[in-house]
């Protein structure tokens, strides 16, 4: 009988040791890298050099356009940053003129929108690819005109002697690139 009791006790204690008092489930979310860039609104900008109101005066040497906004969405892995470069990808700026670009302070959006390299006070001359915004990480600008970075294009006369009458079309390409 003692043996029976001992066996029963052992069995019951064993049952207790097998009791599962916790259980688990997992949650796993994957966020992928995102790189999207666009210019709002669509369509072209027109810059014109006006005639002087009085003969003998210089041309209106600066024309400006501020109708375009730079929008982007960026998601990067830890330790990764991005930059935006601008370049003239088609067409040429007429001789005697300079086409410059400056970015205004960002409006709207969230995250790390980067550091402006080409600002309005110190615009860069457009031509070969050049950095206009740097050190972007995870960020979004907001969508459309009025969100992101307002672009200020200016054109000015660098050499009167080279000016010729005419119309020239240039295409500017913006690229979002990993650093």
């Amino acid at each position: 009988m003692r043996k029976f009791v001992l066996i029963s006790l052992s069995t019951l204690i064993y049952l207790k040791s097998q009791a599962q008092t916790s259980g688990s489930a997992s949650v796993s979310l994957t966020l992928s890298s995102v790189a999207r860039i666009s210019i709002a609104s669509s369509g072209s900008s027109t810059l014109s050099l006006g005639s002087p109101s009085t003969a003998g005066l210089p041309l209106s040497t600066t024309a400006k356009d501020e109708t375009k906004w730079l929008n982007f969405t960026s998601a990067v892995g830890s330790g990764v940053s991005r930059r935006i470069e601008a370049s003239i990808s088609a067409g040429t700026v007429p001789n005697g003129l300079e086409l410059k670009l400056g970015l205004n302070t960002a409006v709207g959006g969230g995250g790390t929108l980067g550091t402006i390299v080409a600002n309005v006070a110190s615009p860069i001359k457009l031509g070969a690819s050049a950095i206009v915004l740097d050190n972007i990480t995870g960020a979004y600008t907001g969508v459309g005109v009025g969100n992101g970075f307002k672009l200020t294009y200016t054109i000015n006369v660098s050499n009167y002697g080279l000016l010729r009458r005419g119309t020239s079309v240039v295409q500017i390409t913006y690229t979002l690139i990993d650093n």
Partner: protein
Amino acid sequence: MKIRLLTFLLSLNLIVKGQTISVSGNWIPTVTAITTTGSDYSSSALTSAANQTLITAGGLGSLLSIKNYQISVSKTNTNWHNNLVLTARRTGTGTPSFLGLLSASGGTTAQTITNISTAFFTINVSILSLGLGNASISNIPIEYSLSGISVILPAKTYSTTITYTIVEL
């Protein structure tokens, strides 16, 4: 002698037999790809199926008294971000082994799951459950919600393990 022995064994059974819990159903939420440049993810919060996880509690009840059990919840992060907020709520009652004698209460409002074990809901077992510690409620459904999703977070896989613990009150 035999009566003594049976009484002893019965008492021992009531003492040593414990409640158990089993959990099934992981959640792998999917983020909708961004289609509009300049925007963040269209939804910063995602919600799972209402029965994403099913909890079964067994070994419940007693001949001697009403029993209440508490289910607590916590998470253990593998890779996580403080901006991500995970909540859980109980969306159903599950299936009791003795209808009307076991019930789940509480936990129907979304509750943030933290790294510290926190009371989630309770299971109440009637004195008449006659379970000798073997009553159960199976498939109590749990729904999750995850908020704070944004491109601002580093792109990678975030994962955490949710632990449910049952204790007798």
